[in-house]
């Protein structure tokens, strides 16, 4: 590994940073100079107008022009973001919808064939069922663990440290987490087991197993990895919501002599309902698009495949742009009911 290997990369980084400074700095400068120039011209025009006629429509004209300029200026502030969103997201999304109605190399129109294919092919139905399992179990388990933990360490000693421990996996990539857990599930045919799970399993008298090869258990074991990552997110949001419960409510309930159990179900849970919904919705949407964990741990083999991985395989490994696009659109359609549910909830919350 010599420096020459790094030189082209580092110069790219340098170009990138210089590009950033030039683009953003230039934009700010432009936004500074251009309105100033117009302001000066407007002033000159106003002065000229007031010299020729002391009354008249000049001020109102000025205001209308100013409003117009505000619009132009707003556009200038928005331009980079809007342009990038248009080129990088909006137009491609529309093209994906169109591609999903065409065949593998996009040469012929095939109507809804690609969508029918999703439900006809047995392998793909399996993929849909697996994804459904993920979307049901991950939010449920991650939220439960996060809530349980948030309630239990609330106001305990070492609360901050205890929370950090659960929170830490959020910083780890799905690929890294996949390797960590593959090591936990590792299997050896003979000799000592090196995987934690097989070691514990043999301790209680079981035969070592190839955990990731046995469906449907393997899908569940992959789900565990996602729960492991997401529980910290649930815990942080819910813990903040718990702390925001007005203390007079808690005090009143305590004076009424409720048990901790009743306190949890009757006071805590209803008070944190909005936060709970946000957590479940966010984790569901994230889980729907799960890709990296499955790809790293089983690569979709042994009946563990999910929609996002199959989309990647169809579009980029098998070069089936039509079927890949149909799966992408399908993912998008799956997200919509969740978002509608979320918007309804927000609206109801705002109304009362």
């Amino acid at each position: 590994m010599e420096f020459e290997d790094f030189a082209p990369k580092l110069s790219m980084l340098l170009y990138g940073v210089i590009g950033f400074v030039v683009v953003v700095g230039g934009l700010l400068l432009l936004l500074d100079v251009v309105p100033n120039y117009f302001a000066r011209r407007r002033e000159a025009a106003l002065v000229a107008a007031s010299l020729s006629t002391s009354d008249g429509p000049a001020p109102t004209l000025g205001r209308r022009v100013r409003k117009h300029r505000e619009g132009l200026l707003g556009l200038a502030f928005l331009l980079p973001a809007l342009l990038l969103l248009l080129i990088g997201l909006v137009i491609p999304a529309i093209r994906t919808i169109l591609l999903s109605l065409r065949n593998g190399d996009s040469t012929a129109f095939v109507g809804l064939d690609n969508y029918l294919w999703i439900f006809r092919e047995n392998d793909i139905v399996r993929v849909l069922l697996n994804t459904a399992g993920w979307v049901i179990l991950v939010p449920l388990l991650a939220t439960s663990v996060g809530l349980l933990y948030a309630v239990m360490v609330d106001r305990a000693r070492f609360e901050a440290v205890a929370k950090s421990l659960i929170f830490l996996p959020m910083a780890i990539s799905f690929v890294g987490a996949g390797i960590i857990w593959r090591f936990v599930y590792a299997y050896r045919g003979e000799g000592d087991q090196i995987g934690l799970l097989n070691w514990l399993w043999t301790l209680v008298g079981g035969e070592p197993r190839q955990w990731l090869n046995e469906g449907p258990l393997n899908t569940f074991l992959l789900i565990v990895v996602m729960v492991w990552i997401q529980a910290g997110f649930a815990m942080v949001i819910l813990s903040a919501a718990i702390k925001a419960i007005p203390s007079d409510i808690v005090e009143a309930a305590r004076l009424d002599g409720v048990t901790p159990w009743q306190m949890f179900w009757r006071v805590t849970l209803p008070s944190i309902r909005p936060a709970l919904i946000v957590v479940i919705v966010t984790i569901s949407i994230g889980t729907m698009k799960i890709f990296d964990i499955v790809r790293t741990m089983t690569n979709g083999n042994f009946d563990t495949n999910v929609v996002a991985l199959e989309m990647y395989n169809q579009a980029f490994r098998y070069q089936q742009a039509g079927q890949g696009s149909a799966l992408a659109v399908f993912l998008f359609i799956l997200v919509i009911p969740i978002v509608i549910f979320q918007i309804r909830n927000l609206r109801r919350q705002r109304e009362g």
Partner: protein
Amino acid sequence: MTTTTPVLAGEATAEPTPRTAAGRVRKRLNSRTATIVSIIIALIWTVPTFGLLLSSFRPEDDIKQTGWWTFFSNPQLTFQNYNDVLFGRSSSSGQLANYFVNSLVITIPSVLFPIAFAALAAYALSWINFRGRDWLYIAVFALQIVPLQMALVPLLSFFSRGVSLGGITLLPPWDLDNEGKFIQVWFAHTCFALPFAVFLLHNFISQLPGELMEAARVDGAGHSKIFRSVVLPLITPALASLAIFQFLWVWNDLLVALIFAGGGRETAPLTVRLAELAGTRGGEWQRLTAGAFVSIVIPLIVFLSLQRYFVRGLLTGSVKG
């Protein structure tokens, strides 16, 4: 994807002691089970990572033949795995130093660009009056729900073949290869980050007091001046939390990198390389453990040192959809 922005109150008020004996017993019992359950959860959440970290320092034969928990009866540590996986000459050893640099080169501009563009856009959407502003904001906000899978195929074909409509070339192909592919990755990450970034910064910027803007305007400052010298200093914490989100997202991303950076040693980041090692050399635990830790260590440092901002960002914007 909005939360109700609850305040993170850290103060621990002393719990009143229960007045009855039964209450006291119940409370003790309760807090004991609570302690045990929370310790079990904390163990499940930390032991796998600890096992990986410990294993990465064990000699190859030890890792492959004995569990990492036997380390405590046979303590032997080595840096050999890290040396091999980072600087080893053979292509099978990982050569992660190279991919580590790639990850850095991908991440830094991919964090800078979206934050700057999103801050400008969020300011315009909050404080510049023009027609259709609210609709524009709603449109950008709604783009958050579009899965990035929806954009991958056409965006890649745009980079490699350009955009043409009815035989007329609207945008030429970029024709990037080798290190040039970094530009594609930056571009893709910037586009995909914008909806959430605009949303998060809009939350902060639109909350700034209007009198402040009015005062600056009376003093003769234009929008550009207000943006630079009033808004930017006030939203530094928001910029920090957005930067952490985006950093973690880009550094840990696999999908975008696979498609736009490819698997070559010129541009592929750590995640792509690790996934490849896990696929082709799944049994080489001395490399996988050390390699995984190499990829984890930077985000962990960032995360631990800036956790405060990260949590604040989470509570204001929830996470990326």
